């Protein structure tokens, strides 16, 4: 009798453990837009190290499982599946015009209402639309559905209407200006209080507009928005994961999510790898400094006598360098492990698109719940920009929403594992090589997963000293 109860207890506790590990994860993942975040907390029912180890093991196990798929034809069928819907020229031009008008109107409202609207983050159109809209919702639309920024981008609309292209863009710079730009924008978002003070945000957007227009007019909008403009490059890279793409030849082309990452060789040099890494890193960084533990760590270092900005700067750029370095290191290890004439650089370029799938998972984990709960506020702001509501509505999310963060981080990594697996089969003639080439990258991915799962499990706080 004793034995059966023990067994039953084991069974029940096991079932319970798997359920809580799935469902009792944290509620509000941290993100950069702390000005809008209501911090809430829920404790894990499994010890943290076990939760992190399980996440890491899930990625490792899925890489092993993917390595069981060795049929080249099946792998190719998955990533080359496509269908397309023809789009009438008139419809396309009409949508383009609607997009441009919408983009210009939004930019105008953001700057105007940022200065003149109510100076409270939850009431101001500029803050709501920039962070709940552009940073969260629109970015999600970009990677879940399709990249429409080219049509909406108000600065492109203006720059194409004016005389432009006085200087040739120095192409040897690649996308490094955009990398620096994205790092700078995320820095402004975290450090300058633009998520809390609408007039500051409006000033930042106005300044950004001037810089962008000058740049776009100088080198021509195509080169500028392709290589140098941080927002465009940011959205363009996210858009590569999306299933739908506008295409001049066949209208709307539809693919399986993430499979363009395998077939379209759009990452070509170290700068492009850096863009992909920066997308992963910026979410990790803003995720770290906006948690209680991150804030406590920074406070501790600052109280030891270092200036706060130096601490943030070293953490920000050092962490980015570490993320990029680890990834490049993985490609060096891969070349050493297998017989090949591919250079480490070439392999790093080849596997970089899979990082975008990871970035998508992180973005969803950090912004999905945030964006759903603020959606009534966003709809209210967009439908009546000039009359802010007295009581902004925010949806209260059920507790299981917190578990989605974990699911998103893992799903992003699983997609990345599959993308890298498909790339490896495209690259190497030997199937064993394709499998072996994955190991260093999988180890790096496990590391990214653990860091990220740790971050989404921590309670949100305001970053100190900023």
């Amino acid at each position, binding site marked *: 009798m004793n034995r059966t109860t023990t067994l039953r207890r*084991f069974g029940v*506790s*096991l079932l*319970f*453990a*798997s359920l*809580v*590990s799935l469902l009792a994860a944290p509620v509000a993942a941290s993100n950069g837009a702390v000005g809008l975040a209501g911090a809430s907390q829920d404790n894990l*029912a*499994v*010890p943290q190290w*076990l939760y992190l*180890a*399980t996440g890491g*093991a899930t990625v*490792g*196990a899925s890489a*092993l*499982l993917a*390595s*069981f798929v*060795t049929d*080249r034809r099946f792998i190719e069928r998955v990533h080359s599946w496509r269908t397309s819907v023809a789009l009438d020229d008139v419809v396309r031009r009409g949508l383009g015009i609607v997009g441009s008008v919408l983009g210009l109107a939004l930019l105008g409202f953001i700057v105007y209402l940022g200065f003149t609207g109510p100076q409270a983050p939850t009431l101001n159109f500029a803050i709501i639309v920039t962070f709940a809209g552009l940073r969260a919702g629109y970015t999600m639309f970009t990677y879940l559905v399709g990249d429409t920024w080219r049509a909406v981008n108000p600065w492109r609309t203006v720059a194409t209407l004016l005389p432009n292209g006085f200087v040739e863009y120095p192409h040897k710079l690649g996308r490094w200006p955009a990398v620096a730009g994205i790092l700078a924008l995320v820095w402004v978002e975290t450090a300058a209080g633009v998520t809390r003070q609408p007039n500051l945000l409006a000033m930042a957007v106005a300044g950004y507009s001037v810089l962008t227009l000058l740049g776009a007019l100088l080198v021509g909008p195509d080169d500028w928005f392709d290589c140098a403009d941080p927002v465009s490059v940011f959205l363009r890279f996210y858009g590569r994961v999306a299933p739908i793409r506008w295409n001049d030849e066949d209208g709307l082309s539809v693919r399986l999510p993430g499979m363009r990452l395998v077939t379209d060789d759009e990452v*070509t*040099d170290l700068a492009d790898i850096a863009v992909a890494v920066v997308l992963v890193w910026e979410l990790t960084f803003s995720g770290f400094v906006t948690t209680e533990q991150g804030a406590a760590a920074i406070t501790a270092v600052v109280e030891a006598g270092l200036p706060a900005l130096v601490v943030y700067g070293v953490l920000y750029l050092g962490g980015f360098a570490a993320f990029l370095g680890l990834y490049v290191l993985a490609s060096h290890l891969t070349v050493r492990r297998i*017989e*090949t*004439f*591919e*250079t480490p*650089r*070439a392999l790093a*370029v080849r596997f970089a698109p899979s990082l975008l799938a990871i970035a998508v998972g992180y973005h969803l984990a950090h912004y999905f719940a945030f964006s759903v709960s603020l959606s009534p506020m966003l709809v209210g702001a967009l439908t009546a920009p000039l009359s802010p509501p007295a009581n902004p509505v925010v949806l209260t999310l059920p507790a299981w929403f917190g578990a989605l963060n974990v699911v998103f981080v893992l799903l992003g990594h699983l997609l990345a594992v599959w993308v890298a697996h498909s790339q490896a089969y495209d690259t190497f*003639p*030997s*199937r*064993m*090589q394709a*499998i072996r080439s994955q190991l260093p990258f999988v180890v790096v991915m496990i590391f990214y997963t653990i860091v990220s799962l740790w971050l989404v499990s921590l309670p949100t706080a305001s970053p100190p000293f900023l």
Partner: protein
Amino acid sequence: MSDTRNDGDGPDRHVCERCGDAYPSARLLTLHRGARHPDDLTADEVEAYREAYYAEERELKSFRIRALGVLVLMYFGFLILFILFAS
């Protein structure tokens, strides 16, 4: 990008006539031609490809068994960890 391939020279360089890709061993070139240009192969080459393919199949089989072992270990390892530590 110019430096995508490290063009090692000497006897260890096996170049595909069709696409110019170079491989460090004859076996890899055979596998490459079989997978990428199956219509170009002569009867002898088809035979060689088949042989290389099945040789690799054996290697894959042993890899799969080891991978399965690791998966089983991971599964039961985590099962035990959850029983012991989750509450």
